[in-house]
């Protein structure tokens, strides 16, 4: 029975926002991937329209970089096709689009660098190596050494609303409306380019929608463009990308190649791992370091290994900026290690479950060379529950038997089933730690209405509903008397990025703390009462990868996914039939909302398995016409269960769990079904068919 939930306040949509005297602006874009001496040729524009180029910005004394090495407009050099070169500003957005496309450019074409798996040293944006234990010694003593290379593709975020920003003035302040997961980054960027104090800028967040962590830093660039144009034209300016522009030129999930060399004993127990991880981050990405760190931290997946050497690179190429999606780099790592376990299972030969069981991470293990894990890791309970729900053992044995008896597959349809385990870390995100700071203010007024003020923007109505329900339960108030103020980032608050689900649960805990503080004062002080809470990460539970101090999995939520798929050997089409998911994410505030979010995330994560890959090197406007998310006719049946602990009072993030476990589960099930190791995702029907034919 689904409980009734009151819909929460929604944020405005940029599409429908309008202010008096507002002008539209369209971005003039580079038409080549790499060029020098690039210039926008001035041309005569219709009355009321104006062109803005970096030259105009410099002449007016404004900044052209909003962050070190991040230009607002390319000045003289193009780094990728579609890079912003300037703006056309005018009253009609459609005319602005036409004029921007007709602008003449002069440039000298250069050979673009699309290669990334073997790269030049000049392409390295960030590099990190990490070693613990004695991998060289372990490789010498190992009974078996195996190597595999695993690839992940590029994906579009499929934003609900295209990227954009509206810059205007309210009293003496410039106000920028935009859908950003990181409003204080937008504010600082706008202040930098306008060369004004940050206090003079306010950022009002519009509806973010299911951004899947694609709105972390790019909105800052668009906001700077709108703010500069507003200053130069002295009128409010709105930039709203067309859907095609959004698809072709906004940032995507980074492409990855993970090479895993493993040393194991005869039972498949890991003795050492030697890993080289390469992330293609496109033309530039200010989050390169974070992507690499998150992927490195997740590389052993849910398994324990006594010795490990990781070498990770973020590599620049001449394609659109490639960055985060879903679990910020962790999904590459989870996929790679699970795919490698499948490979080991094939060569040893053993079942993947046997190899997983000897390597599984448990309390007391010492991962990453750190102190023994103090956290209870519920993988055994999760696996048992999943096996029961999915009838895993019987199905797995049946499908193996069918494969043996009918290797040519006369039936035409084969099936596979797999279980994978994963976690979502609540590991702090950005450095310095101040960037992970969130604040919440709750105020109970004389009319007994409660307002919650947090500058962190919620990505979905479910998150807003969760925050209101939390406050309602703590203060025994009706939800209709609780109001969330629209997030406004001004000088009074500094915040870190709100990612898909990590920040949301941190804010939820802060609301609990603030409400508890307010409750204590409720009948002792006169109204209104205001209580505040701010993030306070105890040093003991945080994890510092460089110094190996702390507990890497403190506060993590745990998950197991079983997936059954069917592959048609005639067409190669892989169809997920059923997904079972068992989750331990502490206290679930609104179970129905959590289930609903998870189901939507499962479908988005399935897109990474069978969806259409975005090829930034060859993508054209025609591709845009055919880009689709997976068809609802391919939606699997989904069953999700929560393993709640009665003692747990803390809620943890769960939105990233499908991204951590669905791709490896799909891959493992596919491996069982077709008996091959494609070592890449996504895999569409044609890819699978090609491999079957090659076999």
């Amino acid at each position, binding site marked *: 029975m*689904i*409980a*009734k*939930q009151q*819909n929460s306040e*929604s*944020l405005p*949509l940029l*599409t*429908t926002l309008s202010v008096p005297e507002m002008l539209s602006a369209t971005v003039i874009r580079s038409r080549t991937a790499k060029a020098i001496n690039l210039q926008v040729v001035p041309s005569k524009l219709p009355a009321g329209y104006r062109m803005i180029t970096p030259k105009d910005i410099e002449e007016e004394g404004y900044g052209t970089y909003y962050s070190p090495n991040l230009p607002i407009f390319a000045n003289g050099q193009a780094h990728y096709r579609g890079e912003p070169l300037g703006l056309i500003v005018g009253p009609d957005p*459609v005319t602005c689009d036409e004029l921007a496309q007709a602008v003449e450019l002069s440039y000298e074409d250069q050979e673009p660098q699309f290669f990334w798996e073997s790269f030049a040293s000049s392409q390295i944006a960030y590099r990190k190596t990490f070693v613990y234990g004695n991998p060289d010694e372990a490789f010498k003593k190992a009974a078996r050494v195996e190597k595999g290379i695993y690839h992940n593709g590029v994906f579009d975020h*499929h934003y*609900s*609303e*295209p990227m954009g920003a509206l810059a205007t003035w309210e009293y003496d302040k410039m106000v920028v409306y935009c859908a950003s997961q990181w409003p204080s980054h937008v504010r600082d960027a706008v202040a930098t380019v306008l060369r004004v104090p940050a206090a003079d800028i306010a950022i009002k967040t519009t*509806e973010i*929608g*299911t951004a899947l962590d694609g709105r972390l830093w790019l909105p800052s660039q668009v906001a700077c463009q709108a703010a500069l144009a507003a200053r130069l034209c002295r009128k409010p300016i709105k930039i709203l990308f*067309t*859907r*095609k522009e959004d698809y072709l030129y906004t940032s995507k999930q980074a492409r990855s190649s993970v090479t895993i060399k493993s040393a194991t004993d005869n039972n498949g127990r890991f003795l050492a791992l030697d890993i080289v991880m390469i992330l293609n981050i496109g033309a530039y990405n200010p989050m390169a370091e974070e992507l690499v760190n998150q992927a490195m931290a997740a590389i052993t997946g849910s398994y324990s290994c006594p010795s490990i050497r990781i070498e990770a690179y973020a590599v620049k190429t001449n394609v659109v900026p490639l960055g985060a999606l879903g679990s910020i780099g962790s999904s590459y790592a989870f996929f790679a290690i699970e795919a490698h376990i499948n490979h080991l299972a094939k060569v040893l030969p053993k079942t993947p479950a046997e190899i997983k069981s000897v390597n599984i991470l448990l309390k007391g293990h010492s991962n990453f060379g750190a102190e023994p894990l103090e956290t209870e890791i519920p993988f055994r309970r999760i696996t048992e529950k999943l096996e029961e729900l999915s009838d895993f053992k019987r199905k797995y044995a049946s499908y193996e038997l069918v494969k043996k008896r009918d290797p040519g597959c006369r039936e035409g349809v084969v099936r596979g089933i797999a279980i994978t385990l994963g976690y979502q870390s609540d590991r702090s995100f950005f450095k310095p730690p101040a960037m992970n700071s969130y604040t919440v203010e709750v105020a109970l007024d004389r009319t007994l209405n409660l307002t919650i003020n947090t500058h962190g923007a919620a990505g*979905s*109505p*479910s998150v807003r509903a969760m925050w209101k329900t939390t406050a309602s339960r703590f203060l025994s108030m009706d939800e209709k008397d609780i109001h969330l103020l629209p997030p406004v980032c001004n000088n009074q608050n500094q915040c870190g990025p709100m990612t898909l689900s990590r920040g949301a649960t941190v804010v939820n805990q802060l609301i609990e703390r603030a409400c508890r503080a307010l409750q204590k004062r409720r009948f002792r002080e006169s109204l209104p009462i205001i209580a505040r809470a701010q993030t306070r990460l105890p040093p003991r539970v945080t994890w510092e990868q460089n110094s190996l101090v702390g507990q890497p999995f403190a506060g993590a939520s745990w998950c197991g996914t079983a997936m059954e798929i069917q592959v048609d050997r005639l067409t190669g089409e892989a169809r997920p039939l059923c997904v079972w998911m068992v989750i331990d994410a502490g206290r679930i505030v609104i179970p*129905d*909302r959590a*289930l*609903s*979010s*998870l*189901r*939507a995330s499962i*479908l*988005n994560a399935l*897109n990474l398995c069978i969806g259409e890959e975005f090829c930034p090197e060859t993508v054209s406007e025609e591709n*845009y*016409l055919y*880009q*689709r*998310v997976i*068809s*609802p*006719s391919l*939606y699997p049946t*989904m069953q999700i269960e929560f393993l709640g602990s009665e003692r747990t009072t803390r809620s943890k993030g769960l939105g990233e769990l499908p991204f951590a476990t669905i791709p490896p589960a799909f891959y493992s099930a596919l491996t069982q079904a077709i008996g091959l190791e494609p070592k890449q995702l996504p895999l569409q029907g044609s890819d699978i068919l090609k491999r079957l034919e090659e076999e």
Partner: protein
Amino acid sequence: MTIDFTLNGKAQHVQIRSGDRLVYVLQKLGDFPSLVPDCLSGNCGHCLVFMDSRLIYSCITPAFKAKDTSIVTYEGFSKTDECKDIVHALTEAAAFPCDFCYKAKVLMIAELLERIPMPEPAQILEQLDIVSCTCTDPVSLTEAITLAAEARNKRKFKRANK
């Protein structure tokens, strides 16, 4: 050329060019926040309207096709009992599409229920393909559509199907 049609019950007499997209013509006729010329390729569903009770993507429909038809946008549809049933059912089933696709999804559900008074889950999934936004999970939406169908049948035929 000049065409005549009705828009949300009001007669319209409009001058158009042969290549005009219907969505742009409709936008000029009033304040219709539900009409967003977004993908311009009949994919996202943010420009859905009813044309003679058929749901169409107005971004890929030439404006001359509207000649002598009756067009209803979400703004016109929102005043009907059918719309109230759907909005109520979405709330009941805790299915909250994002604000960007909410109106399109309501129209999509309305069209399905008009065609099939009590749709099967497979028919519902097929209909979900009309609006590509992935913000809402299909289970909640299916439940909402079933609730809306029951309410609609109860109101129209004085009986519920279950």
